[in-house]
């Protein structure tokens, strides 16, 4: 089992490294950082611009292979991801933002997985009954909405709710209320309040997708012989379903989780933009708009590491659930 997970981890790690390096090469080919400087007035000399670009390690006149190598050497020797075009360190920018994104991602993903699995199991057990129909049509509807639409609809709802109640029950712009006085607890409560809507927005899409998958995985399992065996051994229907049904249905789900995680990352980046959070998603979009190769690659590296962790976690879950891989 450990061998299996380690092998898969190495595979994911290699994929992540290649993906990040490809992103660097692709960004170098597409983004044109020099254009920023030539647009200024007075126009700087070519030598000045070249010096600036060389300093950042993004001069298009240097062969890409050489620049990728310098970038890698910098990581290994200085633990640095280079500088942004604003001459700040990419790594410090990222550490300032990573917490914001991780809070949203971790809470949202956990809620999505738990709610999705629960709804999927319920829908499968009550197949074709009213509750199943409601869950099914509900998740189809949510899956038909892009993340940003869900976010904005939630804002509209929250605004109406606030105006009906006459108080600011739910705040949703930004990560916290600037200039808020009060102790540690007030600050925490304020941040938690701001987290509510983005987290719901992220979790809704995930839960809808997981519930569809869990439902069909569960239906595959329900007709299996071992459920009948468990029942005939004297287990109640509920315990047979949970102990034997849900557990087996979670096996394909763990694989699906690893594959759908990239979608969750994209959704989180979009939701951060909608709710004007200063997270990694904003960092990535800004990097592209400002032709910032180092910042873009840093953001991609962050996402690649998250995919690596999610993939490994789902492999651990897979081998814990499925005795067949414990060789």
């Amino acid at each position, binding site marked *: 089992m450990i061998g299996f997970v380690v092998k898969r981890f190495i595979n994911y790690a290699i994929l992540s490294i290649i*993906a990040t390096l490809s992103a660097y090469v692709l960004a170098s080919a597409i983004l044109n950082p020099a254009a920023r400087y030539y647009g200024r007035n007075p126009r700087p000399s070519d030598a000045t611009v070249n010096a600036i670009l060389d300093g950042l390690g993004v001069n298009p006149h240097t062969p890409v292979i050489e620049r990728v190598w310098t970038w890698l050497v910098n990581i290994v020797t200085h633990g640095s991801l280079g500088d942004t075009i604003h001459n700040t360190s990419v790594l410090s920018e990222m550490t300032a933002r990573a917490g914001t994104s991780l809070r949203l991602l971790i809470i949202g993903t956990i809620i999505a997985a738990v709610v999705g699995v629960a709804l999927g199991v319920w829908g499968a057990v009550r197949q074709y009954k009213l509750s199943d129909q409601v869950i099914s049509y509900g998740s189809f509807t949510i899956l038909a909405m*892009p993340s940003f639409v869900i976010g904005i609809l939630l804002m509209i709802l929250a605004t109406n709710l606030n105006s009906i109640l006459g108080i600011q029950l739910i705040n949703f712009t930004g990560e916290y209320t600037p200039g808020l006085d009060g102790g540690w607890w007030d600050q925490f409560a304020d941040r938690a309040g701001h987290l509510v809507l983005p987290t719901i927005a992220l979790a809704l899409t995930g839960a809808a997708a997981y519930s569809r998958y869990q439902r069909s995985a569960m239906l595959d399992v329900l007709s299996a012989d071992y459920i009948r065996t468990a029942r005939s051994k004297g287990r109640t229907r509920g315990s047979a379903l949970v102990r034997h049904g849900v557990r087996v249905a979670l096996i394909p789900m763990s*694989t699906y989780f690893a594959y759908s995680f990239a979608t969750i990352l994209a959704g989180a980046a979009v939701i951060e933009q909608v709710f004007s959070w200063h997270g990694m998603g904003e960092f990535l979009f800004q990097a592209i708009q400002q032709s910032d190769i180092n910042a873009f690659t840093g953001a991609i590296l962050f996402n690649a590491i998250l995919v690596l962790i999610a993939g490994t976690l789902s492999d651990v879950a897979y081998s814990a659930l499925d005795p067949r891989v414990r060789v």
Partner: protein
Amino acid sequence: MEVLSELPVTDSPEATVPTKPGSKPASRSRMVFRRLRHMPRFWVGIVGLALISLWAIFGLAPNAWNPTDLDVLNMGSSPSALHWFGTSDIGEDIYAQTIVGLRKSLIIGLLAGPLASILAGIIGAFAGYLGGRWDKVIVWFIDLLLVLPSLFLFVLLSPIFKSLSWVALIFLLAAFGWMIMARVIRAQTMSLKERDFIKAARFMGVDTWTIIRRHILPNVSSLLIIDATLGVGAAILSETTLSYFGFGIQAPDVSLGTLLNAGQGAAVTRPWLFVFPAAILVWTVLSASLVGDALRDAVDPTSGVNRG
């Protein structure tokens, strides 16, 4: 993705459906249609798609305003008999704008979805049929594309596509929409390859391309049709997200995504600017996905999760 390789090859679905004794064995497509007829999901989706298509084609006719008209007397007005969906800040008729945007989004979805499926079919069939080194490289490449969210690559590539016309967006969306289905097709092809009729063709010296075209692709066509149907909705979702952030359809072109972007500033105070285009978008994608899901169940009623 071991799960996908456990895909059962759908042999004869006739085995799962009782036929009346003495009646002729029905053809496969007839069987599928018979099952579809009994699915409310299918009818809801088909009727929804039909209505939205008719509306996109003929919806401008009864409207008093053209998409380009500016009604300076009623700027930012709410929905009324004069302007069915209200007007924007500069007096554009939102109803007319919505129809134009819907047309664009529909065209993109209807082309990009099937195009991605064709790519998935060809790449997946080649990987599964050739096996060996080719297979390894293709699978590895697919994994690489699945590691990072396509959205980030779309955004990175957008400077190139901004300078081209909106047609380029169709190819971009198709280029990032084939990976998962290609894996499914690959797994199917690997088991098809061992079947006698394909072996026979191979031993008779039929070349690879012909075998894939004549024997493999028709045998996985049901999967591809499902994927193409679901791909329509997926492509429209990607297009609206990209356009919303300004990375997709560029002005003066209008799509549902650009409309939603224009309406979001006032989403809270004048919700109709946002809610009407959003409702149309959800309706369209939902109809397409209901049809796709019903097709999936009708083609293969026995399997659950093992479908991509």
